[in-house]
């Protein structure tokens, strides 16, 4: 039981970070980023390659994964997104463009995997890093590993860091102003370009960070991003797509309910149900969209979660 809860927390932490990345990019540029799948996938492979080739613990390479996926984000912004934003493209066009970017990134992951397999003779097509994690001790005959705590700590640090950045720094305030009303912010001398670059970098970095941490919980393969992107989208949408903190919460909730829910169901109905774990986040997402399109952040109770609630007035097209 303890083992299960710890794993669920580690998994949910990773999903929460990736969902926050999707929301950040969506809030700033109105782009549903399909390329998030491959950015998360690269997070997995940076950690795997770094650990397998250079040694140490996998944790050393998680920041590197964040940096790498962050730069991928900047690349996508300058390569595709920037021109489309300037041309005032429709949300569907923006979404399709990231799909094209995702296909190219997916191919690049596969090529990298081929390289690792052929040149370095690694089993890169399918790997499990869970056992390489540091062990903190054994309680109730459960080997307690570091990842649940690291994962939670990273989520909390992200919340605190983003909060301080968005409320205490000048640039952070400029970011919020641009998200709320781009033209008004431009009049006041804020360059929206810088905000777009930053949000693509941070969004990508959160994807890489989430992917790097998830690689210590679930097994990795080249299309891992495509498999879990539905859960990531579900987290972002349950969180309301209008507040980074909302989607961190939403991602955490979806991750937890997927991991714990399917295990609970399998205890009642038997192991066959485990194959349907994907249906839990999908159901959560579809129900949220159909019943409560504003998501969790739209619920008016927790005031501190509503940093981005004003943005909703812009995103009414739901």
């Amino acid at each position, binding site marked *: 039981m303890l083992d299960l809860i710890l794993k669920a927390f580690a998994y949910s932490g990773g999903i929460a970070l990736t969902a926050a990345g999707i929301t950040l990019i969506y809030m700033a540029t109105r782009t549903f980023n399909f390329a998030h799948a491959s950015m998360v996938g690269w997070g997995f492979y940076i950690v795997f390659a770094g650990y397998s080739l250079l040694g140490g613990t996998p944790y050393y390479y998680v920041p590197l994964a964040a940096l790498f996926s962050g730069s991928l984000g900047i690349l996508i912004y300058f390569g595709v997104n920037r021109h489309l934003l300037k041309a005032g493209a429709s949300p569907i066009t923006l979404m399709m463009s990231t*799909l094209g970017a995702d296909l190219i990134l997916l191919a690049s992951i596969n090529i990298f995997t081929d390289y690792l397999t052929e040149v370095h003779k690694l089993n890169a097509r399918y790997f499990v890093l869970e056992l390489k994690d540091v062990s903190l001790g054994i309680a109730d005959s459960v080997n307690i590993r570091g990842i649940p705590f690291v994962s939670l700590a990273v989520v909390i640090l992200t919340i605190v860091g983003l909060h301080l950045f968005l409320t205490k720094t000048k640039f952070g305030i400029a970011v919020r102003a641009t998200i709320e009303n781009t033209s008004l912010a431009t009049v006041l001398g804020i360059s929206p370009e810088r905000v777009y670059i930053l949000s693509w970098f941070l969004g990508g970095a959160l994807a890489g960070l989430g992917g790097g941490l998830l690689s210590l919980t679930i097994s990795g393969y080249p299309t891992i991003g495509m498999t879990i992107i539905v859960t990531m*989208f579900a987290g972002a949408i349950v969180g309301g797509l209008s507040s980074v903190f909302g989607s961190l919460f939403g991602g955490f909730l979806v991750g937890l309910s997927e991991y714990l829910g399917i295990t609970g169901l399998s205890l009642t109905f038997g192991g066959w149900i485990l194959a349907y774990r994907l249906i839990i986040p*999908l159901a959560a997402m*579809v129900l949220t969209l*159909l019943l409560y399109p504003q998501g969790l952040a739209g619920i008016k109770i927790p005031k501190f979660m509503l940093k981005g609630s004003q943005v909703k007035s812009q995103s009414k097209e739901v």
Partner: protein
Amino acid sequence: MVFEIHPLILNILVNFAIGLIITVSLNLEVGIAGISQFGRVLAVITGAIVAAAIPGRLLASLIGLPSGVEYADHLINFKIVDQINKILAVNISLAVGILFFTLILAALLGAFIGYLCSYPALRLKEAYLGITLLAFGDVVNTIAWNVDPIAGGTQGVNVPDVFRWIGVGPERYLGVILILIGFGLVVFIFVERLIRSPFGRALKAMRDSEVAATVYGKDIVRLRAQALMVGGALAAIGGALWAFYTGSFKAVTYTRLTWTFWPWAYMMLGGIGNNLGMLVGVFAFSVIRTLIYAYKTELTAFIPISPQWFEYILVGLAIIVLVLFRPQGLFPEKPALTLPKEEIEKIRQRTKKE
């Protein structure tokens, strides 16, 4: 064998025929009706499941073989389908009857799926709707992949060969492809006629401005549901034909990449909203994809990466280049002529005189 056609050309033609059906149905929903359909795979896999599960069971029960849950057991299934194929090989009318019966059933179920999709399609817009439909597609795929009794689950099932009467060797291959192209062209012409009909023009009006269409008395709820039903039915026919052509069904091959995202790329190349453009878009991509696979050894010597990834990069680049430099596609949509060209010319002459 009367004459021989290079297998490469046949391969291009079969990809073209199936791709055309799927892309035309997608264009009807996206290009004409303005619904962001990101779950095309949903109707396609529904059609394929019908072809995998229904005709085989029907024939098995007719000749007294197991047709219940055990039909989908992969250890028994291939023996049953083998027996069925022997009967279909000699009984042409039965085979053709089964083919059309399955296609009609697939179309009905596809239309039903489309009707179900109209519920979210009314409440959500653009990207949100796209994500929801994409999620629906994944759910059906997960179910088909995991529930063995429907269509074999992970092992898949064999699909009765309703084209066995043509032959077994290259003749069958050629015959089936000609039939598939026939179906593709019928679907294409049907949709072309549909777009030019009052119904098609109402869809376009809805796409361009819902408010204006409502003002002129068009029922948006019904129009959307109808567009999704027609599109779903056509895509399901495409899926069923693909299952009949390959002779087997495996849920894992019906991914959102192959049956949603690639048709989107075909459609964008051809020009969203222009039915004629679909012919060009699908044909161009069919040629490119087939050639990449055919010359993979030569390609690998030239570029040291696996051709599969090369294909991904190419499709991805095509999408990005199109979106950036030619978002309207190769053949942009033109205003539809409601009268024959000569009539319009006559009217123009007349108005000039006055």
